[in-house]
């Protein structure tokens, strides 16, 4: 193991190097570019043995990864924002074809107005595409997820592509200390990819086929079950990971001071650290504050969310996203989890950080204060109440 001062992008690239992908298809886009640059350097200097394919667009980048996966190779690609949207058609091909590709997405604002800064509208708009979606908080978790992602995606119960999301700039371009495991450790954790879901001239089979009304539904149902199965596999893989690398992760969600919490912020990604620090500060003032960090948006942690919010007086969902004409998508998902569990706790949505706007400690403190005294259903940090539904 070695310790280095790396950006989130560089840490993720190190994790991918350790996972030994056989094919990397690359099309650069800010703020993802450094990942594919580092990987190309690794292929060049021989520290990573992979076929590195320069493609002409994001649509081609994912198509190339699908082709590689269909040949039985471990495949990697990365994108961001408009790039993710441009490859949207292929997202569904990858998921429906059950190709366990790993793709890093640097979460970035979507046009117009054009903007390269971080928010989560790009990936959250693709929740329905059939991919596993994780959201890292820091560079160490980014590296660790890069390594865990293949083991989760390739599990026979899952066989589902994996989108690892890193907040643009705030995580992708922020430098911090990262422990890099050795190849020996990584190899003992992640075996080479083996699958029957591949082109094989000895035992030819039909792949990427059509399915009419009589069978199509069954394939879609199986795709759904595969994604759901990832919830259990994530826990198993994290247990293996902790045994080999000594770092512990907590499944689909991570709770902080929630056992007796009256006011809880539910959020995702790199803003969670500031939420925890603010909860600490409020605890000193006697406010029972807690934080839930959603680590996986798909499969969605319905039961975990319901369990942790059950005894709260109020909760806020803080997200860098909006589904125009309604509310933040994470808020919709959290509310559904509570409704299904028959839990009636007052929840409010706080939308912030769109287009990279800084979210300050004061903003987080205001969220706790607002839900304690009651506020509108949908609030826009720095702008005010939402007028949702009016």
């Amino acid at each position, binding site marked *: 193991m070695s*310790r280095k*001062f790396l950006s989130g992008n560089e840490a993720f690239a190190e994790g991918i190097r350790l996972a030994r992908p056989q094919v990397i298809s690359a099309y650069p886009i800010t703020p993802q570019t450094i990942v594919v640059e580092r990987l190309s350097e690794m292929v060049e200097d021989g520290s990573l043995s992979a076929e590195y394919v320069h493609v002409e667009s994001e649509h081609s980048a994912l198509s190339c990864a699908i082709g590689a996966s269909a040949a039985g190779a471990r495949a990697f690609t990365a994108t961001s924002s408009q790039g993710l949207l441009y490859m949207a058609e292929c997202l569904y091909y990858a998921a429906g074809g059950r190709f366990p590709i790993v793709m890093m997405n640097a979460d970035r604002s979507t046009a117009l107005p054009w903007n390269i*800064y971080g928010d989560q509208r790009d990936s959250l708009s693709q929740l329905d595409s059939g991919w596993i979606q994780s959201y890292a908080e820091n560079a160490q978790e980014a590296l660790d997820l890069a390594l865990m992602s293949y083991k989760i995606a390739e599990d026979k119960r899952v066989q589902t592509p994996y989108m690892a999301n890193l907040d643009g*700039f*705030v995580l992708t*371009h922020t430098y911090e*200390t990262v422990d890099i495991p050795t190849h020996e450790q990584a190899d003992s954790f992640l075996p080479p990819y083996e699958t029957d879901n591949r082109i094989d001239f000895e035992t030819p089979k039909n792949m990427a086929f059509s399915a009419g009304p009589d069978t199509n539904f069954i394939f879609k149902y199986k795709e759904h079950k595969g994604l759901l199965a990832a919830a259990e596999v994530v826990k198993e893989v994290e247990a293996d990971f902790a045994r080999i690398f000594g770092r512990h992760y907590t499944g689909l969600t991570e709770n902080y001071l929630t056992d007796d919490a009256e006011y809880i912020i539910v959020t995702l990604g*790199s803003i969670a650290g*500031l939420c925890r620090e603010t909860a600490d500060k409020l605890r000193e003032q006697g406010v029972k504050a807690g934080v839930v960090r959603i680590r996986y948006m798909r499969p969605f942690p319905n039961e975990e969310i319901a369990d942790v919010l059950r005894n709260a007086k109020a909760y806020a969902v803080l997200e860098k996203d909006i589904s125009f004409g309604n509310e933040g998508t994470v808020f919709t998902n959290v509310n559904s989890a509570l409704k299904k569990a028959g839990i009636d706790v007052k929840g409010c949505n706080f939308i912030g950080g769109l287009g990279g706007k800084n*979210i300050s400690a004061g903003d987080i403190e205001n969220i706790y204060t607002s839900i304690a005294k009651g506020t509108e259903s949908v609030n826009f940090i720095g702008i005010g109440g939402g007028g949702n539904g009016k």
Partner: protein
Amino acid sequence: MHEIIWLGRGGQGAFTAAKLLGAAYTIDDDNKYALAFPSFGPERRGAPVRAFTKLDTKPVVDRSQTEKADYIVILDDTLYIPQLQGLLKSTGTIIVNSKNNIDGALTFDADKIAADFRLPTANTVMFGLLAGLSGVVAADEAVEAIKGYMPAKIHERNISALLKAVQEVAE
């Protein structure tokens, strides 16, 4: 926690200095933590750039931009404005690369030291001045950071310039 804001123009290496400080602080010490980040944007040559370094003995989880800094280090004196005082802690200090005196700031002619060592920019000089003034990192830690995180061919000149700056402050 120590918080440092770096101001420069695109191409002057403000973010590189911010990274070097974080790397120096954490080098060879598993109980020290740092974050270094730019003010997030397409860095164009000549455009104002802000960068931030946060140093602590516990993991730094607040990734928001610094609102109250211990030090503001300015690589280009045309970027100094009196309003920057509002971004300082009461004990904070502003250090400016300038040939002139500036009220409320310490000034050093870092460009001259950089030129003496044939460096096109004064970022590692300002890093050395900060290290010498603040003591947040030792000179040998700063040197290790340059060795670990800058291209080999520019190690020698940058290390010499940094050590000269540290010496300048000591005098």
